[in-house]
Protein backbone atom coordinates (compact mmCIF):
# COMPACT_ATOMS: atom_id res chain seq x y z
CA UNK A 1 0.00 0.00 0.00
CA UNK A 2 1.69 3.18 -1.16
CA UNK A 3 0.29 5.47 1.55
CA UNK A 4 1.98 3.29 4.17
CA UNK A 5 5.35 4.17 2.65
CA UNK A 6 4.45 7.85 2.80
CA UNK A 7 3.31 7.53 6.41
CA UNK A 8 6.63 5.93 7.37
CA UNK A 9 8.49 9.01 6.16
CA UNK A 10 8.27 12.04 8.49
CA UNK A 11 6.48 15.05 6.97
CA UNK A 12 8.65 17.77 5.47
CA UNK A 13 8.14 20.38 8.20
CA UNK A 14 9.02 17.82 10.86
CA UNK A 15 12.17 16.78 9.01
CA UNK A 16 13.34 20.38 8.71
CA UNK A 17 12.37 21.05 12.35
CA UNK A 18 14.45 18.02 13.27
CA UNK A 19 17.38 19.40 11.28
CA UNK A 20 17.05 22.75 13.04
CA UNK A 21 16.92 21.01 16.45
CA UNK A 22 20.11 19.10 15.64
CA UNK A 23 21.74 22.36 14.70
CA UNK A 24 20.65 24.22 17.83
CA UNK A 25 21.35 21.37 20.30
CA UNK A 26 25.13 21.95 20.71
CA UNK A 27 24.54 25.68 21.13
CA UNK A 28 21.97 25.00 23.85
CA UNK A 29 24.42 22.63 25.53
CA UNK A 30 26.94 25.47 25.69
CA UNK A 31 24.34 27.77 27.30
CA UNK A 32 23.55 25.02 29.82
CA UNK A 33 27.21 24.66 30.82
CA UNK A 34 27.41 28.44 31.14
CA UNK A 35 24.25 28.54 33.30
CA UNK A 36 25.72 25.92 35.65
CA UNK A 37 29.34 27.11 35.72
CA UNK A 38 28.85 30.80 36.58
CA UNK A 39 27.00 30.31 39.93
CA UNK A 40 28.95 27.10 40.67
CA UNK A 41 32.33 28.82 40.62
CA UNK A 42 30.95 32.13 41.91
CA UNK A 43 32.34 34.05 38.94
CA UNK A 44 32.48 37.83 39.31
CA UNK A 45 29.99 39.48 36.86
CA UNK A 46 32.78 41.88 35.85
CA UNK A 47 34.68 38.87 34.53
CA UNK A 48 31.77 36.94 33.05
CA UNK A 49 28.02 37.58 33.34
CA UNK A 50 25.31 35.09 34.25
CA UNK A 51 22.78 33.82 31.71
CA UNK A 52 20.08 35.78 33.50
CA UNK A 53 22.06 39.03 33.30
CA UNK A 54 22.58 38.62 29.57
CA UNK A 55 18.88 37.77 29.18
CA UNK A 56 18.04 40.92 31.13
CA UNK A 57 20.34 43.01 28.95
CA UNK A 58 18.69 41.52 25.88
CA UNK A 59 15.18 42.38 27.16
CA UNK A 60 16.25 45.89 28.07
CA UNK A 61 17.92 46.65 24.76
CA UNK A 62 15.05 45.16 22.79
CA UNK A 63 12.55 47.23 24.79
CA UNK A 64 14.37 50.54 24.35
CA UNK A 65 15.06 49.79 20.67
CA UNK A 66 18.85 50.13 20.84
CA UNK A 67 19.56 46.51 19.89
CA UNK A 68 17.46 46.78 16.72
CA UNK A 69 19.15 50.07 15.92
CA UNK A 70 22.63 48.54 16.24
CA UNK A 71 21.68 45.43 14.25
CA UNK A 72 20.03 47.53 11.54
CA UNK A 73 23.07 49.78 11.18
CA UNK A 74 25.45 46.80 10.97
CA UNK A 75 23.31 44.88 8.47
CA UNK A 76 22.87 47.92 6.23
CA UNK A 77 26.64 48.45 6.12
CA UNK A 78 27.50 44.83 5.48
CA UNK A 79 24.73 44.53 2.86
CA UNK A 80 25.76 47.63 0.94
CA UNK A 81 29.49 46.94 1.12
CA UNK A 82 29.01 43.33 0.02
CA UNK A 83 26.71 44.34 -2.84
CA UNK A 84 29.25 46.84 -4.20
CA UNK A 85 32.02 44.29 -3.74
CA UNK A 86 30.25 41.44 -5.56
CA UNK A 87 28.92 43.60 -8.40
CA UNK A 88 32.42 44.87 -9.19
CA UNK A 89 34.36 41.69 -8.43
CA UNK A 90 32.43 39.18 -10.57
CA UNK A 91 32.79 40.97 -13.94
CA UNK A 92 36.45 41.72 -13.21
CA UNK A 93 37.14 38.12 -12.17
CA UNK A 94 35.52 36.80 -15.34
CA UNK A 95 37.39 39.26 -17.56
CA UNK A 96 40.67 38.19 -15.96
CA UNK A 97 39.85 34.48 -16.01
CA UNK A 98 39.18 34.42 -19.76
CA UNK A 99 42.85 34.92 -20.49
CA UNK A 100 45.14 32.29 -18.93
CA UNK A 101 48.15 34.60 -19.18
CA UNK A 102 46.39 37.43 -17.34
CA UNK A 103 45.01 35.11 -14.66
CA UNK A 104 48.40 33.49 -14.03
CA UNK A 105 49.98 36.91 -13.75
CA UNK A 106 47.38 38.34 -11.37
CA UNK A 107 46.81 35.30 -9.14
CA UNK A 108 49.63 36.06 -6.64
CA UNK A 109 48.43 39.64 -6.39
CA UNK A 110 44.89 38.63 -5.54
CA UNK A 111 46.05 35.98 -3.08
CA UNK A 112 48.10 38.65 -1.35
CA UNK A 113 45.16 41.05 -1.11
CA UNK A 114 42.75 38.27 -0.11
CA UNK A 115 44.83 37.68 3.02
CA UNK A 116 44.97 41.39 3.80
CA UNK A 117 41.26 41.87 3.11
CA UNK A 118 39.16 43.55 5.79
CA UNK A 119 40.57 44.44 9.18
CA UNK A 120 44.09 45.37 8.08
CA UNK A 121 42.66 48.18 5.97
CA UNK A 122 40.84 49.94 8.84
CA UNK A 123 43.66 52.36 9.78
CA UNK A 124 44.25 53.59 6.26
CA UNK A 125 40.51 53.61 5.49
CA UNK A 126 39.88 56.02 8.37
CA UNK A 127 42.67 58.25 7.05
CA UNK A 128 41.11 58.27 3.59
CA UNK A 129 37.43 58.49 4.47
CA UNK A 130 37.42 59.85 8.05
CA UNK A 131 35.57 58.17 10.89
CA UNK A 132 32.15 56.98 9.76
CA UNK A 133 30.09 55.35 7.07
CA UNK A 134 32.57 55.72 4.19
CA UNK A 135 35.46 54.05 5.98
CA UNK A 136 33.31 51.13 7.14
CA UNK A 137 31.81 50.55 3.70
CA UNK A 138 35.30 50.62 2.24
CA UNK A 139 36.55 48.00 4.68
CA UNK A 140 33.63 45.68 3.90
CA UNK A 141 33.89 46.26 0.15
CA UNK A 142 37.56 45.47 0.43
CA UNK A 143 36.97 42.28 2.40
CA UNK A 144 34.56 41.02 -0.25
CA UNK A 145 36.13 42.39 -3.41
CA UNK A 146 39.49 40.62 -3.47
CA UNK A 147 38.21 37.25 -2.31
CA UNK A 148 35.31 37.23 -4.76
CA UNK A 149 37.48 38.43 -7.66
CA UNK A 150 40.08 35.78 -6.95
CA UNK A 151 37.50 33.01 -6.65
CA UNK A 152 35.67 34.11 -9.80
CA UNK A 153 38.97 34.13 -11.66
CA UNK A 154 39.70 30.66 -10.34
CA UNK A 155 36.19 29.49 -11.29
CA UNK A 156 36.43 30.72 -14.86
CA UNK A 157 39.91 29.30 -15.41
CA UNK A 158 38.83 25.85 -14.19
CA UNK A 159 35.79 25.52 -16.49
CA UNK A 160 36.57 22.45 -18.63
CA UNK A 161 37.77 23.45 -22.09
CA UNK A 162 35.25 21.14 -23.86
CA UNK A 163 32.38 23.21 -22.39
CA UNK A 164 33.77 26.38 -23.93
CA UNK A 165 34.45 24.55 -27.18
CA UNK A 166 30.94 23.10 -27.19
CA UNK A 167 29.42 26.56 -26.81
CA UNK A 168 31.63 27.97 -29.58
CA UNK A 169 30.78 25.12 -31.97
CA UNK A 170 27.07 25.65 -31.27
CA UNK A 171 27.40 29.23 -32.42
CA UNK A 172 27.99 31.13 -29.16
CA UNK A 173 29.71 34.50 -29.60
CA UNK A 174 31.72 36.31 -26.95
CA UNK A 175 28.76 37.67 -25.04
CA UNK A 176 26.86 34.37 -25.07
CA UNK A 177 30.01 32.55 -23.93
CA UNK A 178 30.16 34.95 -20.99
CA UNK A 179 26.55 34.75 -19.88
CA UNK A 180 25.78 31.13 -20.83
CA UNK A 181 29.03 29.39 -19.90
CA UNK A 182 31.58 31.43 -17.94
CA UNK A 183 29.22 32.98 -15.41
CA UNK A 184 27.26 29.83 -14.48
CA UNK A 185 30.41 27.72 -14.76
CA UNK A 186 32.22 29.93 -12.26
CA UNK A 187 29.22 30.05 -9.92
CA UNK A 188 30.44 27.38 -7.44
CA UNK A 189 33.61 29.38 -6.91
CA UNK A 190 31.76 32.69 -6.85
CA UNK A 191 29.52 31.35 -4.07
CA UNK A 192 32.56 30.14 -2.14
CA UNK A 193 34.10 33.57 -2.62
CA UNK A 194 31.01 35.38 -1.37
CA UNK A 195 30.83 33.09 1.63
CA UNK A 196 34.47 33.64 2.58
CA UNK A 197 34.22 37.34 1.75
CA UNK A 198 31.09 37.79 3.86
CA UNK A 199 32.89 36.12 6.76
CA UNK A 200 35.79 38.57 6.41
CA UNK A 201 33.34 41.43 5.96
CA UNK A 202 31.36 40.60 9.08
CA UNK A 203 34.52 40.46 11.20
CA UNK A 204 35.90 43.57 9.53
CA UNK A 205 32.63 45.36 10.19
CA UNK A 206 32.66 44.63 13.91
CA UNK A 207 36.27 45.78 14.16
CA UNK A 208 35.64 48.93 12.14
CA UNK A 209 32.56 49.79 14.20
CA UNK A 210 34.65 49.67 17.38
CA UNK A 211 36.77 52.49 16.03
CA UNK A 212 34.96 54.43 13.39
CA UNK A 213 31.36 55.03 14.38
CA UNK A 214 28.77 55.60 17.11
CA UNK A 215 26.19 52.96 16.19
CA UNK A 216 26.32 49.26 15.28
CA UNK A 217 27.08 45.99 17.03
CA UNK A 218 30.84 46.60 17.22
CA UNK A 219 30.22 49.99 18.81
CA UNK A 220 27.78 48.40 21.26
CA UNK A 221 30.49 45.97 22.43
CA UNK A 222 33.13 48.60 22.70
CA UNK A 223 31.08 51.12 24.67
CA UNK A 224 29.85 48.41 27.07
CA UNK A 225 33.49 47.67 27.89
CA UNK A 226 33.95 51.22 29.23
CA UNK A 227 31.18 50.58 31.78
CA UNK A 228 32.28 47.02 32.70
CA UNK A 229 28.95 45.77 31.34
CA UNK A 230 30.06 42.25 30.50
CA UNK A 231 26.43 41.17 29.99
CA UNK A 232 26.09 43.65 27.10
CA UNK A 233 29.41 42.53 25.62
CA UNK A 234 28.40 38.89 25.71
CA UNK A 235 24.94 39.74 24.37
CA UNK A 236 26.58 41.56 21.47
CA UNK A 237 28.88 38.62 20.78
CA UNK A 238 25.94 36.21 20.76
CA UNK A 239 23.99 38.45 18.38
CA UNK A 240 27.00 38.76 16.05
CA UNK A 241 27.43 34.99 15.89
CA UNK A 242 23.71 34.30 15.60
CA UNK A 243 23.22 36.75 12.73
CA UNK A 244 26.10 35.12 10.84
CA UNK A 245 24.56 31.68 11.30
CA UNK A 246 21.21 33.00 10.08
CA UNK A 247 22.72 34.65 7.00
CA UNK A 248 24.53 31.42 6.20
CA UNK A 249 21.60 29.04 6.80
CA UNK A 250 18.79 31.17 5.41
CA UNK A 251 20.56 32.89 2.52
CA UNK A 252 23.71 31.12 1.33
CA UNK A 253 22.80 27.47 1.92
CA UNK A 254 19.42 27.66 0.11
CA UNK A 255 21.13 29.51 -2.75
CA UNK A 256 23.63 26.68 -3.09
CA UNK A 257 20.94 23.99 -2.87
CA UNK A 258 18.86 25.46 -5.67
CA UNK A 259 21.78 26.02 -8.04
CA UNK A 260 25.13 24.36 -7.89
CA UNK A 261 24.03 21.33 -5.82
CA UNK A 262 21.06 20.71 -8.12
CA UNK A 263 23.38 20.87 -11.13
CA UNK A 264 25.74 18.36 -9.50
CA UNK A 265 28.63 20.81 -9.54
CA UNK A 266 29.34 20.36 -5.83
CA UNK A 267 28.41 17.56 -3.52
CA UNK A 268 25.90 18.24 -0.78
CA UNK A 269 27.71 19.07 2.44
Amino acid at each position, binding site marked *: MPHDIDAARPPRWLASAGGAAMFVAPLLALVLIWAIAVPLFGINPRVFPSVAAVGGAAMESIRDGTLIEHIGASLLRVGLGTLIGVVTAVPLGIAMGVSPAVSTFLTPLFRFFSVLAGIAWIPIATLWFGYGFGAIIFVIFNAVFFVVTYNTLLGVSTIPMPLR*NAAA*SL*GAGRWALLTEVLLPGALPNIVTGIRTGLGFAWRGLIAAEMIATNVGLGYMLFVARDFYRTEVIILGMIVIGAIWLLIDRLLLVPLERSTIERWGMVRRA
Partner: protein
Amino acid sequence: MKTLELRNLKKTYFDPYAGSHVTAVHDVSLEVQQGDFVSVVGPSGCGKTTILNMVAGFIPHSGGEILLNGKAINGPGPERGVVFQSFALFPWKTVLDNVGFGPKMRGVPKAERDRIAHEYLALAGLSHAASRYPNELSGGMQQRVGVVRALANHPEVLLMDEPFASVDAQTRMTLQEELTRIWQERRPTVIFITHDVAEAVFLANRVVVLSKGRVLDQIEVALPRPRVWDDLIEDETFKRLSAQVLHMVRSA
Protein backbone atom coordinates in the same frame (compact mmCIF):
# COMPACT_ATOMS: atom_id res chain seq x y z
CA MET B 1 28.99 16.84 -53.81
CA LYS B 2 31.95 17.27 -51.56
CA THR B 3 31.36 19.03 -48.29
CA LEU B 4 34.63 18.80 -46.46
CA GLU B 5 38.09 18.67 -47.88
CA LEU B 6 41.41 18.40 -46.04
CA ARG B 7 44.44 19.20 -48.22
CA ASN B 8 47.93 18.31 -46.98
CA LEU B 9 46.89 19.10 -43.44
CA LYS B 10 49.77 19.43 -41.01
CA LYS B 11 50.11 20.12 -37.30
CA THR B 12 53.27 20.75 -35.35
CA TYR B 13 53.43 22.08 -31.85
CA PHE B 14 56.05 22.82 -29.26
CA ASP B 15 56.28 20.21 -26.54
CA PRO B 16 57.52 21.96 -23.38
CA TYR B 17 58.47 18.63 -21.75
CA ALA B 18 60.50 17.35 -24.68
CA GLY B 19 61.79 20.86 -25.37
CA SER B 20 61.31 20.41 -29.09
CA HIS B 21 58.74 20.62 -31.87
CA VAL B 22 56.56 17.57 -32.38
CA THR B 23 54.62 16.76 -35.54
CA ALA B 24 51.24 15.28 -34.64
CA VAL B 25 49.82 15.37 -38.17
CA HIS B 26 52.25 15.08 -41.09
CA ASP B 27 50.30 15.29 -44.31
CA VAL B 28 46.67 14.32 -44.33
CA SER B 29 44.39 14.73 -47.32
CA LEU B 30 40.79 13.61 -47.14
CA GLU B 31 37.52 14.28 -48.91
CA VAL B 32 34.09 13.75 -47.39
CA GLN B 33 30.97 13.89 -49.55
CA GLN B 34 27.73 15.39 -48.35
CA GLY B 35 25.68 12.87 -46.38
CA ASP B 36 28.58 10.46 -46.03
CA PHE B 37 29.63 8.67 -42.87
CA VAL B 38 33.41 8.36 -42.45
CA SER B 39 35.19 6.71 -39.54
CA VAL B 40 38.77 7.65 -38.72
CA VAL B 41 40.54 4.92 -36.81
CA GLY B 42 44.06 4.54 -35.53
CA PRO B 43 46.15 3.79 -32.47
CA SER B 44 46.49 6.45 -29.80
CA GLY B 45 48.94 9.13 -30.80
CA CYS B 46 48.15 8.74 -34.52
CA GLY B 47 46.79 12.29 -34.66
CA LYS B 48 43.10 11.52 -35.11
CA THR B 49 41.81 13.75 -32.33
CA THR B 50 44.22 16.50 -33.40
CA ILE B 51 42.69 16.39 -36.88
CA LEU B 52 39.19 16.64 -35.45
CA ASN B 53 40.16 19.58 -33.24
CA MET B 54 41.61 21.39 -36.26
CA VAL B 55 38.49 20.74 -38.36
CA ALA B 56 36.33 21.91 -35.46
CA GLY B 57 38.45 25.06 -35.30
CA PHE B 58 39.48 24.56 -31.68
CA ILE B 59 43.18 24.60 -32.56
CA PRO B 60 44.91 26.19 -35.55
CA HIS B 61 46.58 24.02 -38.19
CA SER B 62 50.24 24.50 -39.07
CA GLY B 63 49.98 23.80 -42.78
CA GLY B 64 47.63 22.75 -45.57
CA GLU B 65 43.97 23.63 -45.93
CA ILE B 66 40.61 22.78 -44.41
CA LEU B 67 37.80 23.62 -46.80
CA LEU B 68 34.10 23.45 -46.04
CA ASN B 69 32.06 23.80 -49.24
CA GLY B 70 35.16 25.23 -50.83
CA LYS B 71 35.74 27.88 -48.16
CA ALA B 72 38.59 27.86 -45.64
CA ILE B 73 37.37 27.44 -42.07
CA ASN B 74 38.21 30.05 -39.47
CA GLY B 75 37.77 29.10 -35.80
CA PRO B 76 34.82 27.11 -34.41
CA GLY B 77 31.44 27.58 -36.03
CA PRO B 78 27.88 26.21 -35.90
CA GLU B 79 28.19 24.64 -39.37
CA ARG B 80 30.54 22.10 -37.76
CA GLY B 81 28.75 20.38 -34.86
CA VAL B 82 30.89 18.51 -32.33
CA VAL B 83 30.10 15.55 -30.08
CA PHE B 84 32.68 15.25 -27.30
CA GLN B 85 34.12 12.22 -25.56
CA SER B 86 33.43 13.96 -22.22
CA PHE B 87 29.85 14.80 -23.39
CA ALA B 88 30.44 18.49 -22.52
CA LEU B 89 26.81 19.12 -21.60
CA PHE B 90 26.15 22.34 -19.69
CA PRO B 91 25.49 21.15 -16.11
CA TRP B 92 23.44 24.28 -15.31
CA LYS B 93 21.01 23.76 -18.18
CA THR B 94 18.22 21.24 -18.38
CA VAL B 95 18.39 18.60 -21.09
CA LEU B 96 15.83 20.62 -23.09
CA ASP B 97 17.89 23.81 -22.83
CA ASN B 98 21.09 21.96 -23.71
CA VAL B 99 19.50 20.70 -26.94
CA GLY B 100 17.94 24.11 -27.60
CA PHE B 101 21.27 25.90 -27.11
CA GLY B 102 22.29 25.95 -30.78
CA PRO B 103 18.91 27.31 -31.95
CA LYS B 104 19.08 29.88 -29.12
CA MET B 105 22.44 31.07 -30.44
CA ARG B 106 20.81 31.46 -33.87
CA GLY B 107 18.20 33.72 -32.30
CA VAL B 108 15.31 31.25 -32.54
CA PRO B 109 12.49 32.32 -30.15
CA LYS B 110 11.92 30.28 -26.98
CA ALA B 111 8.74 28.47 -28.07
CA GLU B 112 10.20 27.45 -31.42
CA ARG B 113 13.53 26.23 -30.01
CA ASP B 114 11.67 24.21 -27.36
CA ARG B 115 9.70 22.59 -30.17
CA ILE B 116 12.93 21.80 -32.03
CA ALA B 117 14.54 20.42 -28.87
CA HIS B 118 11.52 18.23 -28.12
CA GLU B 119 11.59 16.90 -31.68
CA TYR B 120 15.26 15.90 -31.40
CA LEU B 121 14.84 14.46 -27.90
CA ALA B 122 12.07 12.26 -29.29
CA LEU B 123 14.48 11.14 -32.03
CA ALA B 124 16.81 9.81 -29.33
CA GLY B 125 14.00 8.43 -27.14
CA LEU B 126 14.68 11.04 -24.45
CA SER B 127 11.39 12.91 -24.26
CA HIS B 128 10.89 11.88 -20.64
CA ALA B 129 14.22 13.47 -19.60
CA ALA B 130 13.60 16.96 -21.01
CA SER B 131 13.36 18.72 -17.66
CA ARG B 132 16.25 16.81 -16.04
CA TYR B 133 19.72 18.17 -15.42
CA PRO B 134 22.63 16.29 -17.06
CA ASN B 135 24.06 15.05 -13.75
CA GLU B 136 20.80 13.17 -13.14
CA LEU B 137 21.31 11.05 -16.28
CA SER B 138 23.44 7.97 -16.97
CA GLY B 139 26.49 8.33 -19.22
CA GLY B 140 24.68 6.71 -22.13
CA MET B 141 21.74 9.09 -21.82
CA GLN B 142 24.05 12.08 -21.48
CA GLN B 143 25.76 11.20 -24.74
CA ARG B 144 22.42 10.77 -26.51
CA VAL B 145 21.74 14.35 -25.44
CA GLY B 146 25.21 15.30 -26.72
CA VAL B 147 24.45 13.81 -30.14
CA VAL B 148 21.02 15.41 -30.59
CA ARG B 149 22.28 18.74 -29.23
CA ALA B 150 24.76 18.82 -32.10
CA LEU B 151 22.15 17.61 -34.64
CA ALA B 152 19.49 20.12 -33.55
CA ASN B 153 21.72 22.89 -34.86
CA HIS B 154 21.67 21.40 -38.40
CA PRO B 155 25.43 21.34 -38.88
CA GLU B 156 26.85 20.65 -42.33
CA VAL B 157 29.33 18.27 -40.76
CA LEU B 158 28.99 16.36 -37.52
CA LEU B 159 32.36 15.77 -35.85
CA MET B 160 32.35 12.97 -33.30
CA ASP B 161 35.40 12.53 -31.08
CA GLU B 162 35.37 9.01 -29.58
CA PRO B 163 31.88 9.79 -28.30
CA PHE B 164 31.10 6.31 -26.97
CA ALA B 165 34.49 5.55 -25.42
CA SER B 166 33.39 6.27 -21.87
CA VAL B 167 30.12 4.31 -21.73
CA ASP B 168 29.80 0.63 -20.88
CA ALA B 169 30.01 -2.01 -23.63
CA GLN B 170 26.28 -2.87 -23.75
CA THR B 171 25.19 0.77 -23.87
CA ARG B 172 27.84 1.45 -26.49
CA MET B 173 26.30 -1.12 -28.86
CA THR B 174 22.85 0.41 -28.38
CA LEU B 175 24.21 3.89 -29.00
CA GLN B 176 25.99 2.72 -32.15
CA GLU B 177 22.78 1.18 -33.50
CA GLU B 178 20.83 4.32 -32.64
CA LEU B 179 23.42 6.48 -34.37
CA THR B 180 23.17 4.48 -37.59
CA ARG B 181 19.37 4.72 -37.42
CA ILE B 182 19.46 8.50 -36.85
CA TRP B 183 22.02 8.87 -39.64
CA GLN B 184 19.72 7.01 -42.05
CA GLU B 185 16.79 9.22 -41.08
CA ARG B 186 18.58 12.58 -41.18
CA ARG B 187 21.60 11.96 -43.39
CA PRO B 188 24.07 14.30 -41.68
CA THR B 189 27.67 14.29 -42.92
CA VAL B 190 29.63 12.54 -40.17
CA ILE B 191 33.29 12.20 -39.29
CA PHE B 192 33.61 9.71 -36.48
CA ILE B 193 36.92 9.40 -34.59
CA THR B 194 37.53 6.13 -32.75
CA HIS B 195 40.23 3.68 -31.72
CA ASP B 196 37.69 0.81 -31.80
CA VAL B 197 38.03 -1.06 -35.10
CA ALA B 198 34.66 -2.88 -34.89
CA GLU B 199 32.92 0.40 -34.11
CA ALA B 200 34.57 2.11 -37.08
CA VAL B 201 33.47 -0.63 -39.50
CA PHE B 202 30.00 -0.99 -37.98
CA LEU B 203 29.09 2.68 -38.35
CA ALA B 204 30.76 3.97 -41.49
CA ASN B 205 30.52 3.91 -45.26
CA ARG B 206 34.28 4.34 -45.33
CA VAL B 207 37.03 3.73 -42.78
CA VAL B 208 40.14 5.92 -42.88
CA VAL B 209 43.10 4.24 -41.19
CA LEU B 210 45.55 6.68 -39.70
CA SER B 211 49.09 6.02 -38.58
CA LYS B 212 51.74 8.38 -37.25
CA GLY B 213 49.97 11.43 -38.61
CA ARG B 214 49.42 10.02 -42.12
CA VAL B 215 46.55 8.27 -43.91
CA LEU B 216 47.56 4.63 -44.24
CA ASP B 217 44.58 3.47 -46.27
CA GLN B 218 40.87 3.97 -46.84
CA ILE B 219 38.46 1.05 -46.89
CA GLU B 220 34.93 1.13 -48.30
CA VAL B 221 32.34 -0.60 -46.12
CA ALA B 222 29.61 -1.91 -48.38
CA LEU B 223 27.45 -3.41 -45.66
CA PRO B 224 23.67 -3.11 -45.94
CA ARG B 225 21.70 -0.84 -43.61
CA PRO B 226 20.05 -0.75 -41.15
CA ARG B 227 22.98 -2.22 -39.26
CA VAL B 228 22.28 -4.29 -36.17
CA TRP B 229 24.92 -5.97 -34.02
CA ASP B 230 23.03 -9.27 -33.74
CA ASP B 231 23.23 -9.63 -37.54
CA LEU B 232 26.65 -8.15 -38.22
CA ILE B 233 28.48 -10.08 -35.53
CA GLU B 234 27.97 -13.21 -37.70
CA ASP B 235 28.39 -11.45 -41.05
CA GLU B 236 31.32 -12.64 -43.18
CA THR B 237 31.91 -9.28 -44.85
CA PHE B 238 31.89 -7.49 -41.51
CA LYS B 239 34.36 -9.99 -40.07
CA ARG B 240 36.64 -9.75 -43.09
CA LEU B 241 36.63 -5.92 -43.12
CA SER B 242 37.17 -5.71 -39.38
CA ALA B 243 40.09 -8.11 -39.59
CA GLN B 244 41.58 -6.14 -42.48
CA VAL B 245 41.36 -2.84 -40.56
CA LEU B 246 42.61 -4.46 -37.38
CA HIS B 247 45.75 -5.84 -39.06
CA MET B 248 46.45 -2.42 -40.52
CA VAL B 249 46.01 -0.64 -37.19
CA ARG B 250 48.15 -3.18 -35.33
CA SER B 251 50.96 -3.15 -37.87
CA ALA B 252 50.86 0.63 -38.03
